[in-house]
């Protein structure tokens, strides 16, 4: 079973005629990484929102096509249902900074999913160690620098071991050391069977995080497989 299947996805935000997505087909299997690049304003964030079921359930607009997450229609699933399967690191890390300390922030998603306190403590400590975040313990997430916030957002999104990790420009603010740790964590998850959907703009010369990734360019609402070379 594919983790994510999108077929013939079209979407225009309400009040606009422009099709941000104009017939997108994409499927991602277990243990597979897909890298989407393309110009800013090309629809990468919109595609991520579709994969996370936020579109069409929470955003108004003209949606058509078929979207399935873990074999279930995204419209029926909605974000609450999708939260079982998805870890979404948003472009704005501040959207997920609500708890008083970094540890509480990371634990939040596990608590919501009803995990045992002892298990939560172990998972939080584990992900903080792997991402080199020991120095952030006890800090107020809202008072961190934006790169540090991205790191906290990433830890919070992957701590429950989701089947699909969506990263929307989520590594762009990390320094080289932290970026390497984040990529190592993601690759380990992929090898453990998780699927990765990574949106990163092109042209920084800093991508190519996964040599094994399938690469696409999203431009004018259409997805084209990138020819390697």
């Amino acid at each position, binding site marked *: 079973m594919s983790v994510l299947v999108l077929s013939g996805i079209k979407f225009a935000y309400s009040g606009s005629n422009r099709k941000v997505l104009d017939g997108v087909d994409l499927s991602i299997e277990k243990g597979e990484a897909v890298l989407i690049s393309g110009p800013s304003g090309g629809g990468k964030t919109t595609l991520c929102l579709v994969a996370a079921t936020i579109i069409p359930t929470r955003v108004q607009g003209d949606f058509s096509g078929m979207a399935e997450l873990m074999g279930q229609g995204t419209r029926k699933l909605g974000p609450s249902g999708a*939260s079982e399967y998805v870890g979404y690191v948003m472009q704005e890390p501040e*959207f997920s900074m609500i*708890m*008083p300390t970094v540890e509480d922030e990371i*634990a939040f998603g596990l608590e919501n999913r009803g*995990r045992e*306190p002892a298990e939560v403590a172990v998972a939080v400590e584990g992900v903080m160690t792997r991402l080199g975040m020991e120095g952030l313990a006890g800090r107020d997430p809202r008072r961190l620098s934006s790169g540090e916030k991205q790191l906290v957002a990433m830890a919070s999104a992957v701590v429950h071991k989701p089947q699909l990790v969506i990263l929307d420009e989520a590594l762009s603010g990390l320094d080289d050391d932290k970026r390497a740790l984040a990529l190592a964590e993601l690759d380990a998850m992929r090898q453990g069977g998780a699927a990765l959907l990574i949106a990163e703009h092109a042209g920084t010369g800093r991508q190519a995080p996964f040599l094994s990734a399938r690469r696409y360019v999203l431009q004018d609402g259409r997805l084209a497989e990138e020819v390697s070379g």
Partner: protein
Amino acid sequence: MWSDMDPRSKIFATLCLTSMALLVRMPLAALLLAALTAAALIAFGIDPKGPLKTLIRLAPAMLVVAVLQVLLVRSGRTVLSAFGIGIVTTGGLGAAAFMVVRVGIIAACGYILSGIGFADFLLAMKSMKVPYEIAFMAAMGAKFLPLLAEEMTDSLTSAELRGADIKRMGIIRRLRLYSEVLMPATFTALSRAEGISWALELRGFNPGAGRTYWRKLEMRMSDWMAFPLGIIAFAAFLLANY
């Protein structure tokens, strides 16, 4: 001392204080109430500098309302008159003083409440059997104002850096600038609030479902004390006033 007190005691304490602030009638009781609020701030481990700054920022608005109160409320003895018409009365002065104390107490309570984290607040409301929808709206509302304030600050800074000299600007131009900045700032703050609600849902925040707490909301001795203390203070207050 009790800065990490249970959010429920904080909510209870602010409920007591604000309702007393609205009901207060006697000058002595108002002073005592102000003292009690200060004591609560200290007890909850809040540096009084924060609320004081808020008060200073509110000062111009409070001054305008106070002046209106002084001029419009005419009761008691006339203190100042011109052309044989009483302008300032003791009743007016009293009303203005009460208004200042009330706003001060409510601002301090807002400060105590804003110290409670978003999720803690929701959890406390939930454990007090407040319907989730209402609790969530209240929490998002409480979150929205700081977001809007942040947006406004940055927008105004960028306006100043581009030559809008706000300090030396006339009041009309300043109001026009504020109104121009307010729209986009509100839009951004709203879309951020929307993003926060998406992120919450995607992280499994669904209050209907079973949830665990890796840190427990524990009612300790100091928390339980907040309740009888609040009730005693409230009873004494009612006796003194009526």
